[in-house]
């Protein structure tokens, strides 16, 4: 997956903050953006690894 640009990521952060009800100040944006950019880059490295549809996530819930 290609990397998201700063402007698009800031728009996503503003929308997600509203959806989550987390008020964020403008001064926090560069740091939040930098952190989220790293997380998304790493998450996509993981997601690019092909696994079968049937693969189970690690946590197992016992009823």
């Amino acid at each position, binding site marked *: 997956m290609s990397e998201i640009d700063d402007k698009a990521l800031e728009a*996503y*952060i503003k929308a*997600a*903050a509203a959806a*989550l*009800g*987390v*008020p*964020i100040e403008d001064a*926090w944006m560069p*740091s*939040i*953006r930098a*952190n*989220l950019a*790293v*997380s*998304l880059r*790493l*998450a*996509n*490295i*993981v*997601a690019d*690894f092909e*696994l079968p549809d049937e*693969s*189970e*996530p*690690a*946590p197992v819930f016992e009823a």
Partner: protein
Amino acid sequence: MEAWSTAAEIAEAVAQGRTSAIAVTEAALARIKERNGVLNAFTAVTAERALAKARAVDAARAAGRPLGPLAGVPFAVKNLFDVAGLPTLAGSKINRTRAAATVDAPLITRLESAGAVLLGALNMGEYAYDFTGENVHDGPSRNPHDTGRMTGGSSGGSGGSVAGGLVPIALGSDTNGSIRVPSSFCGLFGLKPTYGRLTRARTFPFVASLDHLGPLARSARDLALAYDAMQGPDVEDPVCTTRLPEPALPTLGKGIGELRIAVAGGYFERGAGPEVIQAMSLVSQELKANDIIELPEVARARAAAFVITTSEGGALHLDRLRTRAGDFDPATRDRLIAGAMVPASLVTKAQKFRRWYRAQVLQLFERYDAILAPATPMTAPKLGQQTMMLDGAEVPLRANIGIYTQPISFIGLPVVCVPLPLRPLPIGVQVIAAPWREDIALRIAHHLERAQVAQAPRPPL
């Protein structure tokens, strides 16, 4: 007894009447008073409680009642453990307004049942989202080997208190390396047991998928003593195993005769500083570990641990981010807000990858009993340091301290971090075993200690 006595030596001396629990406790309290101003390891000292417990141990001996294996041994806990009478800070400002805990965490109860004496609660990185041991609210934990340097974190006070000779045993938590990193930077033995081995009940969580608790000490025997006393099922932690305790102490001195030990190469060689290379060479030579193996997709494993951590951390703190964002360390706050925004689809992928990776790594343990890997890419950085050199490039320090520990805790493997007493600063090596084989990792650590390859060095205090 003196500051550098091990827990085993203290317990033996108390049992034999060569000293008393009260004398040991008073001496430890005096050392805390003298050194904590510099080390900043303790955030609360439970002196009255400790003296009462010590008197009870001495009374038991006087009455001829049997003493536990940790009789009169002082210990302390990272301040995310519930300690009756104290608010459970977890390194935060926000938790200071919580009601005091009314009941101790079960691991404290279990150590005290073995005769140990709780001396207090220890400094840590805010909400355990930290590898440095720095804390904006309480000030940094300071490394006893060089007080201008980091202890490592997030169990920073746990590292500083044991390396600084305040207590012989401290408990910490390890989600991505928070026991092993301070063990490496402070020159200590640290045990991160198998995921689910020790109950996490009544401790403040960070990442439910990855949180572990365990001891730090100045000898492998002391780790085994504390670990054995803390094992056992607990219905209050849904992750805690129902396996019966499997004590490590009986086989500690068995040596390494038949054990097959390999060295993790590839990813674990990249970015390794000269001290890391020297430490790995000393340990692998002593253990005659000649096979170099590669853990499959290990960089992706580290990435997946990072993603699960930030996401679960963000979810845990969502309400506090909504209402008290200004009371967090700004750096923690921004990591947690970003974590709360990672799409669930990507987090689920990371959890699926985790099961795949586990299956692959477990295959390696069909051929080997233990795998060696460095614990940290460097010795203790300076307090306040922001960047480091890795593979010839300047990269942010915080996120990269844990590159060698994260892929291991990601699948809950038991690890003993052993200290190499290099100069001017110590550094750790991870001895990694198959799930539920803490006994093997401890045996190897004990062997390295007897061979004087691994040793917890005394700092110049």
